[in-house]
């Protein structure tokens, strides 16, 4: 090869077809217009617009990313969502308050208890009632168990996205322990519909203490393994340290909450600051780190599992006796045995499961800390048996706005790591 060969001569020599005109940018622009995006109208130059998703294994469901690339460098990212929109907020207006939890539990399907809890709390707020202590402790235990399951799911998918394939199997293995516990307590592995307005659906079954401890043991053992496998692993650190950095101010401006906010050195956890369950009676720490990168978000979720296990262990110890749901026959159904012997119980049961209960007019917003951040429920009632508006503030929906500041000036492979570290659940994003 001679040094003064031109590009055209090189192509002529290396290919049969010789040099060809690069296609004009018009094709790229066409994509832009149909995508409904807001790319600038000026000449795009050498950059290329690539659609990643919605059918892409590492986009966690059906997330589509429009990326402007310059070679391998990502210049800009824009998330395009709505592929999983099923009108769940509209459905929520059609369902009675008794049926509503079956709907919301399918939003964030990886941590369904948080959804059920925030819905139930909103209804209880409008009714001016409060669940009995045992119900609150059961809720707390199940929510923490679900935080463990959710973060283990994150560890599994995050590992797979970044290239630690064995991590996927390990994460799923420990998560399965949690799901088995859900099945044991609620009858269902996912979408449990266990937390309901007024309390929980059923009391804890026999042997729940031993099994809860077993789950905690298994999960803590698993976390130690992941820690050993990944935290100091040079390949893992190469892929995650300093990638997808976001600052506290960017998080606050864009309403980003949860582990992403805590990874920037901002120790904010609604369980500590605005707890709606007896979190002040258990001992746990808020995990936060200072760097705001993919690695920190991985570490936060890793250690939060241990804190959740700590809370579950304390729940096992301190679980109070008493009612598992409020003894208000207009809100919660009577025990099954009562239906056979009491006319009133039968009527209450029938009324509750046909037309539900009525909620006085009003509006309220309740927020709790889900594994992904602040999940809120804004509920408006007009005095009938169905909400006028049942809006869920999904943390994943807001957290997806973090892709833009995180994704600028990264590589395509990093984009996968960044999306994975946001841990979006598309069922909650699109609702």
């Amino acid at each position: 090869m001679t040094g003064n060969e031109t590009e055209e001569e090189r192509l002529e020599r290396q290919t049969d077809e010789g040099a060809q005109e690069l296609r004009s940018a018009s094709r790229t622009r066409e994509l832009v217009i149909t995508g409904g995006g807001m790319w600038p109208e000026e000449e795009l130059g050498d950059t290329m617009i690539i659609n990643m998703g919605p059918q892409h294994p590492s986009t966690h469901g059906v997330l589509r990313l429009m990326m402007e690339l310059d070679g391998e460098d990502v210049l800009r990212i824009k998330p395009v969502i709505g592929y999983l929109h099923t009108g769940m907020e509209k459905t929520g207006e059609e369902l009675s308050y008794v049926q509503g939890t079956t709907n919301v539990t399918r939003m964030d399907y990886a941590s369904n208890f948080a959804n059920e809890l925030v819905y139930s709390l909103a209804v209880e707020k409008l009714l001016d009632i409060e669940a009995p202590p045992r119900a609150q402790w059961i809720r707390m235990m199940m929510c923490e168990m679900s935080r463990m399951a959710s973060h283990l799911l994150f560890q599994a998918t995050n590992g797979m996205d970044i290239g630690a394939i064995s991590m996927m199997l390990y994460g799923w293995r420990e998560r399965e322990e949690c799901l088995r516990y859900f099945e044991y307590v609620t009858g269902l592995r996912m979408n449990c519909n266990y937390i309901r307005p007024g309390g929980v659906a059923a009391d804890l079954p026999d042997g729940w203490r031993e099994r809860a401890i077993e789950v905690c043991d298994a999960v803590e053992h698993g976390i130690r393994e992941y820690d050993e496998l990944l935290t100091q692993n040079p390949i893992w650190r190469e892929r995650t340290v300093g990638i997808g950095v976001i600052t506290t101010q960017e998080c606050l401006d864009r309403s980003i909450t949860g582990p992403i906010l805590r990874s920037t050195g901002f120790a904010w956890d609604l369980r500590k600051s605005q707890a709606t369950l007896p979190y002040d009676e258990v001992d746990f720490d808020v995990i936060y780190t200072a760097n705001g990168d993919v690695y920190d978000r991985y570490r936060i979720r890793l250690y939060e599992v241990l804190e959740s296990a700590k809370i579950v262990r304390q729940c096992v110890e301190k679980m109070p006796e008493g009612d598992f749901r409020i003894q208000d026959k207009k809100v919660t159904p009577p025990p099954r045995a009562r239906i056979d012997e009491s006319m009133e119980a039968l009527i209450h049961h029938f009324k509750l499961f046909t037309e539900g209960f009525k909620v006085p007019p009003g509006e309220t917003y309740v927020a709790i800390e889900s594994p992904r951040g602040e999940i809120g429920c804004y509920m408006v009632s007009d005095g009938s048996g169905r909400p006028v508006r049942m809006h869920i503030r999904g943390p994943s929906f807001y957290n997806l706005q973090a892709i833009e500041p995180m994704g600028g000036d990264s590589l395509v492979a990093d984009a996968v790591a960044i999306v994975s570290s946001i841990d979006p659940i598309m069922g909650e994003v699109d609702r």
Partner: protein
Amino acid sequence: MADDTAREDNHEDAETAVDVHAPVIADEVAAAVVEQFPGSVFADSHGQAVVYVDRAVFADVAQYLRAEQQFTMLADITVVDHLLDGARVEWPGVEYERFEAIANYLSHPRNRRIRVIAQIPAADPSVPSLTSVFRGAEFPEREAYDMFGVTFDGHQDLTRILMPDDWHGFPLRKDDPAARVPITFNGDPHPR
């Protein structure tokens, strides 16, 4: 039966408590907002501070809360359609309209929340956008536009976000009932 009467009593109490307008505003931030923006009305909604403001100052209130009252984050913004309400809690001094824009703010340093509600008439469904104050309003405002057809003036990219770009209608409006679009199968004489 004793339970039932007790519960009904509770409900009556709640309703009368709503009807009486509190002369003293219990929430200091709400009091400051009412003072800063004349015409605003404070409401105590189940212990949560709510301020009803004129929609023209919707974004100004956000700016005020952020700059003067340390409200660091917009927790949520959404819209409600009150077209078919059976009953509605009405506070004196608020002129109620069909739509409402609801913004929930959160202050991390002060660990408190406040809710700001603006009434939006059906004839002109628009409200100032909060995106210039809180960038996080970008997605939820697009969602509110997509679902209710309420435009947010000043939003840079007010396009549909959840529904397809060519969708007609606004799904969460009360006059857009579920199953408005009939389900069609292959071979039907008039596919959609």
